[in-house]
């Protein structure tokens, strides 16, 4: 009897999943696997078909100084973007969920990064960063500070990209926090207020724990995005100077669509996927059980 009920749940679950899975397999998993298989082959080039290389491509990757450099860049990039953009997203969401004067304007301001195409926005930031007459240098110039080549020197290039990324991400994540804040029963906040908790305490002890499902979602996306957001790099720095601001995916794009080395690109992709799996999926299964959903 019990088994029967279970079975019905199974079938409903599978049926619900079926349409999405068909598309996922057709347009993600199967192509991904075919292209990943090529990481064991040389890149086919016109007259020379691919030949099996075994792990040679991986060997090459381990010997590739650029790979290690972009990996290092990516870690720094992750540290610079993830915590900051999530923290800002929460703060923004709290602000615009509150009775803030001019709330509509603030909400819209925080949302702009999501609406504007990253490519176009990168051009604007390019202007902001331009030495001499760029916005930042004009502002700094008012204080008599010298012009800075933000994007053109290895020390500042990556950090400048981080700033743009945080700008983009925080507004994006804010939307999900805003939606999640709506689902927290008001009486819980009221109860905490009665207990004498100030905003800070209410946030840390009530709101934040109740936002955990969203935080889990957002932080996994943040981890993934910090490996995925590279569009603006093409315009801002093109990975330069000397790969100082190149990230792993940027390097993969370069390998795949500039160098047209699909074999090696696949190898790098495998490395990226393995890393993301460990980080993101590991993170999910580790935290999902601890998150309080209801």
């Amino acid at each position, binding site marked *: 009897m019990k088994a029967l009920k279970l079975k019905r749940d*199974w*079938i*409903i*679950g599978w049926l*619900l*999943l079926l*349409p999405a*899975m068909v598309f*996922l397999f*057709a*347009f*993600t*998993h*199967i192509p*991904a696997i075919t*292209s990943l298989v090529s990481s064991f082959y040389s890149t086919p080039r016109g007259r020379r078909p691919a030949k099996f290389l075994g792990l040679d491509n991986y060997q090459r990757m381990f010997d590739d100084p650029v790979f290690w450099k972009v990996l290092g860049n990516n870690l720094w990039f992750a540290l610079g973007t993830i915590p900051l953009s999530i923290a800002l997203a929460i703060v923004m969401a709290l602000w*615009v969920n509150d009775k*803030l*004067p*001019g709330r509509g*304007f*603030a*909400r*819209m*301001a925080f*949302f*702009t*990064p*999501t*609406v*504007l*195409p990253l*490519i*176009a*926005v990168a051009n604007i930031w390019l*202007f902001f960063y331009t030495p001499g007459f760029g916005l930042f240098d*004009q502002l700094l110039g008012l204080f008599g500070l010298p012009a800075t080549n933000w994007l053109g020197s290895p020390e500042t290039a990556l950090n400048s990209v981080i700033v743009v990324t945080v*700008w983009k991400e925080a*507004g994006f994540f804010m*939307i*999900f926090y805003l*939606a*999640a804040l*709506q*689902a927290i029963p008001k009486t819980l906040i009221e109860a905490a207020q009665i207990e004498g908790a100030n905003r800070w305490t209410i946030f840390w002890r009530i709101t934040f724990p109740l936002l955990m*499902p969203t935080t889990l*979602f957002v932080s*996994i*996306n943040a981890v993934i995005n910090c490996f995925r957001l590279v569009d603006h790099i093409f315009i801002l720095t093109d990975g330069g100077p000397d790969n100082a601001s190149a990230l792993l*995916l940027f390097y*993969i*794009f370069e390998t795949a669509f500039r160098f047209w080395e699909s074999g090696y*690109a696949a190898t790098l*992709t495998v490395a990226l*996927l393995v890393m993301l*799996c460990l980080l*993101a*999926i590991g993170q999910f*299964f580790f935290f999902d059980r601890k998150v309080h959903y*209801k």
Partner: protein
Amino acid sequence: MTSQRISYDRTLNTVAAWTLALLWILPLAYAVWTAIHPAAYEAHFTLSAPLTLENFQKAWAAAPFARYFLNTILLVTLILACQFFLCTLAAYAFARFEFPGRSIFFTLVLLQLLVMPDILIVENYKTMRLLDLVDTIPAIALPYVASGFGIFLLRQTFLTVPRELDEAARIEGSSALGVLWRVYIPLAKPTYLAYGLVSVSHHWNNFLWPLIVTNSEETRPVTVGLSVFSAIDSGVEWSVINAATLMTSGPLLIAFLLFQRQFVQSFMRAGIK
């Protein structure tokens, strides 16, 4: 009476929020500035600068934007409709049903988040050719309709819906799909709004795949028109690019302004004791 409420803490928060908001809107403000002034004022912010619509005229003339807008709207509508449908069903399965393979399937969904769709363009192009869909709007849409992001997001939201409501609906005779339709979806409205805005923004702005899989004016989205301005051989013309950007993103900004109020209405105030 209410004036007493304007405390120190409140003022501080308001000031901070406004400062951040101003910082955040700076790029948009700059885009507006350059778009409505002649190019000479791209880096000079004098209030007396003359106004002009010339940049918009130039931008509008550079590509068949009217057609592109229509295509984009068709595209994002198609994607959004399919995403809502597929992701809702899948998220519901993950949130409220126990079945073998749930973790594995969910891992597969998360994997989709990790795999960059651009990496797969060659394979997906082959698939589209196989389906004889090259140079059609569905070809742009199909790889994105099953969104790991959407499934994940909706799952998280569905998990926060009080079980009692699910139970009450079931007692009233709702089938599994009935409960989904009558309880989960209405209660997840803020999330759907958020996801809709994000998805629309994303696909509105997506470029590489549409460029590659389409060839004709009848199928291409606005971003392809926008890319005409990303000149390499000549320098960046901020005023025209920004006019074009504003033109293409304008509908999104307006949509957001229309929907933003919805976010801040409470949907789940009471009902659960």
